[in-house]
Structure formats: C-alpha cells, structure tokens
C-alpha cells in the first residue's frame, strides 16, 4: 500500500502540473481545440501513441492474446504499419494541410468543409457522440478490472472513481493539457511495458525458449476451443475455422484498419505546424507502439506458461473466463508489490491519456460539430469551450451507464466494435476527400450513411458477437444470427467498408462535383 500511495501521488502531482501548464497556455479557441497548431514532434509521437494504445490494448487485447496466442502479432504489425506509417504519411500530411486551408478544428469539420456539407459534419459528430462512449467505457473498464484485482474493491467503485479523475483533467486543460499529460504518460507506459517484456522473457529462458515452452502446452488448450479451430498458442488458428475468421477479421483487421477512421487520432495531425514535425513523429510513435502493443500481445500469450508451470491450469480458467482479468492477475501474482503499484500507474497513464482525448473529441463533437453547425447554421460563437465542457459532462454520464452495464470480457470486443464502425463510416470519404478532387457531396453523404447503416445492420442481425449481446435478432427472428458459418464470424467492417467505397465512387461519377473554389481552397497547400 505504501508503494501504491507514493507512486500514485507522484504521478498525479506531475499530471496536475502538466494539465495546469496546458490550462495556462490555452488562450484562444484554437489553443483549446488544436493546441495552437504548434506541437513538438516528440510530444506528438508520444501523445498520439498513448492515445492510440490504451488500457484496451494492454488489458483487453493482452487477455485476447492469452486466449488465442501469438497470432495477434499480426495486429501489432498493422498497429505500426497502418496505425503509424499509413496514418501519418498517407493521411496525416494531407489532413494537416487541408485542415489548415479549410480552417477545420475537428475531424467532422474537416469532412464537412471539404464536401461543403453541414449534414456530414453534424452526422459525423453524432456518430462520435453516440458510439465513442462505448470505447471510452472499454478503456476505463481495463484499469478498473486491475484495481478490482489489486485492491480487492468492487469494480463499479473503481470505475466511477477513475472516470471522474480522467474527466477533470480534460475539462480544464483543453487539447494542450491533454497533449502534455499524455506525452508524460506515454513515457511511463514505455518504461513499464519494456520492463514487463524483458522480465517475462528473461525468466522463461530467453525468446526462443519462452516460445518453445508455450508450444509445449498446446495439448492443454480446452477441447471446445480445439474444435473451433484453436491449434495452440504459437500457431495461427485452423484456416477458415470460426476462430480464424474471428481473430483475423475482428481482432486483427477490424482494429488494424479501423484506426484510420478514429476522430480523436486524426485531429492530432492538425496540431502540427509543418510536415517536418510529422516526419519526425513517425519513428517515435512506431517505437512506442512496438514497446507497448508488441509487448502486451507477447506477454499475454506467455502468461499461459507462467500459470501452467505454477498452478497447472491456464489463465483462462484462473479468471473464470473473464479475459479482462488475465493481465491484472498475472502482474499481481508474479511481480513484487512495488512493481504492481508501478504497473497500476502505467495503466492509469494509458487510461487517462486515451480517455481524456476521447472526452475531448466527444466535447468538441457536441460544441463544434452539432451545436455550431446543426443548431447555429455554422455561426462561430464564443461559448464553444463552454459547450465543449457541457459535452464532456454529458459524455461522462453516458460512459458511466455503458461501463456499468457492459458484460465481462468486453474490453477488446467494445474496442473492435468502435474501430470497425468508424472505419466503415469514415475511411472512404476521408481518403477520397484528401486525394480525389472529383468526389461529390451526394457521394460523401451516401458513402457515410451506407457504411454506417450496413455496419449497424450487420452487427445487429449477422455478426454473432454483437447480435447476441444486443438480442434484437433473437427477439425478432428467434435466433442468435441470421447467417451461418462463416458469415456470423466475419466483422462488419469487412462487409461495410467495400460497400461504402463502391457507393462513393459510383455516386461521384453521376453527380455534380463540389464547387471549384472550395476544391481549390482545400488543395491550396497540397
């Protein structure tokens, strides 16, 4: 308890200092929304990484890799290649330039101004406002599960306390406060995760020996998982089996591709003053992602060796099937108390950096995208920051309710749900907006609506994971899913994203382009 109180107080004191620094340096609306477009590349790299990689990756996907094994290293590859290189170089550079040319302050505003459509900005803001709290709840559930295991207090108490702490920082600090604190939190995450990675591999006799030990316990995989296609923790699942479809399309591709459509990440590109900062941010972010997700997925799989060698059972059984408790239990059982306290600070960092950015995106969606655009017809007012803070408070209540009603083993699933929905809804209009001058306003509307509704229908009626949770399909058709194998295991994004792309291209070719002046203005720096 001494270590916990000491580390937590030091951490909170430094975080309060950085948040206060952000508050002091926030003068204009642009400061609050975009940190004045003057962010240092190391700050950008660490804060982007810390926002992208939350407790969801460490606790949620760490638990998933404990179940499915090393196949999740493909997700780490996509996290780096798509989430960093493609996001920064292919999307980020043009987002920064176009955001500046169109004077856009949020991701929906960028899309709305590019296509001259208040509807696109308002609808995009609404999608964020309604569905992002599911992801925010998942992030906060991640740390709440750890607090539950470590301090032995009720999950709901831990969840409520941490939700309030996170919300306080973003309400006062604006994006500058969020950037400063998340960069500091990013440093803590890298140090903690590297320490866990090295200690795990070292105590198992090195990299190759650790992997061989994991392969040796393949026969311990539960029979029902083997029947579904599980071939051990150091092998990919049986091709075309239900587990293979699920791991590949939902856990790997759903999150790996969906990151491009994440509003709270895309807005970061608009905070930089030149492409030079963007180029320099790429290596810092990539190393950060490797040290956090790469370690989390590897250690998650290797927990099987520890639990089997010590308790002759797999961690899946030790946590009674709740995947979100595997990493917390592993740290609690196999590490000294001072390190457990340090890891809790690491998770606080991960949860607060991601959570605060999400609350910031939620607040600006209400103020900038819905209040100013839909209600005031585009009129900019001085009350923007006040409405943003009201939006954050409303989001806190939504997150609280969602977090308390979500079932167990939900962190990775809820994350994949939001990433998948954003990917199918936003990626085509975003990509074509940056690269295709011929893209039209009706095409953008049709693409966003088709991506969103196809995703939603697929989730409610076909994809068994969500269809079973929502229960709508059972109520109407008296069955868990309208589709059989493999369609009931294929992620909604895999279906909705191609449809959304095709709709955009076809409608663009038969409708009138956006006004030439708008296109010229949007591409002025490109």
């Amino acid at each position, binding site marked *: 308890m001494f270590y916990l109180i000491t580390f937590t107080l030091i951490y909170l004191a430094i975080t309060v200092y950085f948040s206060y620094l952000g508050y002091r340096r926030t003068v204009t609306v642009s400061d609050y929304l975009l940190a004045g477009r003057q962010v240092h590349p190391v700050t950008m790299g660490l804060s982007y990484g810390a926002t992208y990689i939350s407790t969801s990756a460490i606790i949620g996907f760490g638990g998933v890799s404990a179940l499915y*094994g*090393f*196949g999740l*290293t*493909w997700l*780490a*590859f996509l996290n*780096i*290649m798509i989430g*960093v*290189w493609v996001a920064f*170089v292919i999307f980020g*550079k043009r987002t920064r*330039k176009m955001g*500046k040319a169109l004077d856009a302050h949020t991701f929906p505003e960028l899309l709305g101004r590019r296509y001259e459509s208040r509807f696109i900005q308002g609808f995009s803001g609404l999608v964020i406002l309604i569905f992002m709290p599911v992801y925010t709840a998942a992030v906060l559930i991640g740390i709440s599960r750890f607090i539950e295991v470590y301090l032995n207090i009720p999950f709901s108490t831990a969840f409520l306390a941490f939700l309030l702490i996170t919300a306080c920082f973003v309400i006062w600090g604006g994006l500058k406060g969020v950037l400063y604190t998340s960069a500091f939190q990013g440093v803590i995450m890298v140090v903690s995760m590297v320490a866990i990675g090295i200690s795990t591999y070292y105590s198992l006799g090195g*990299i*190759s*020996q*650790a*992997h*061989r030990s*994991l*392969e040796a316990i393949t026969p311990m995989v539960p029979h029902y998982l083997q029947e579904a296609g599980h*071939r051990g923790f*150091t*092998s*990919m699942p049986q091709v075309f089996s239900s587990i293979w479809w699920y791991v590949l399309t939902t856990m790997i591709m759903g999150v790996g591709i969906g990151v491009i459509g994440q509003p709270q990440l895309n807005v970061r590109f608009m905070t930089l*003053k*030149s*492409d*030079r900062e*963007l*180029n*320099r*941010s*790429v*290596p*810092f*972010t*990539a*190393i950060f*992602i*490797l040290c956090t997700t*790469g370690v989390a997925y590897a250690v998650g799989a290797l927990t099987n060796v520890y639990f089997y060698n010590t308790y002759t059972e797999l961690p899946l059984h030790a946590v009674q099937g709740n995947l979100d408790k595997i990493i917390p239990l592993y740290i609690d059982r196999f590490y000294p108390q001072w390190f457990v306290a340090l890891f809790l600070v690491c998770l606080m960092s991960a949860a607060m950096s991601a959570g605060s950015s999400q609350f910031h995106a939620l607040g600006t969606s209400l103020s900038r995208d819905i209040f100013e655009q839909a209600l005031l017809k585009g009129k900019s007012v001085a009350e923007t920051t006040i409405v943003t803070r009201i939006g954050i408070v409303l989001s806190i209540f939504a997150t609280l309710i969602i977090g308390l009603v979500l079932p167990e083993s939900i962190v990775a699933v809820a994350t994949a749900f939001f990433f998948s929905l954003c990917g199918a809804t936003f990626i085509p209009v975003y990509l074509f907006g940056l690269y295709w001058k011929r893209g039209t306003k009706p095409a953008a509307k049709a693409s966003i609506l088709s991506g969103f509704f196809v995703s939603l229908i697929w989730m409610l009626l076909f994809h068994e994971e969500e269809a079973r949770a929502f229960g709508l399909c059972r109520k109407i058709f008296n069955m868990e899913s309208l589709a059989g194998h493999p369609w009931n295991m294929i992620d909604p994004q895999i279906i909705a994203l191609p449809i959304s792309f095709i709709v955009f291209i076809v409608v663009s070719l038969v409708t009138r382009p956006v006004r030439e002046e708008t296109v010229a203005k949007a591409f002025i*720096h490109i």
Partner: protein
Amino acid sequence: MLGFSDSWVFAGFAFMIASALFCVVYGILNWRKGGIEK
C-alpha cells in the same frame, strides 16, 4: 525460427519488428524534409 513452428506466426512477429524499423528509417531519411507553407 525463434521457437515458432508455425511460419505464419513467425512472419507476424518478424513483420511487427520490421515495420517499426521501417518507420525509424523513414523518419531518419525524411528528418529535414517538409517545411512550413509560405
């Protein structure tokens, strides 16, 4: 390779590390490129 008998898993592990190295090399090669618009 590296204790993995499944070549797909080894490839995932190798690609994960290679992609991070690729990003580092990209950052170094483009360190001075991309100035501010006029």
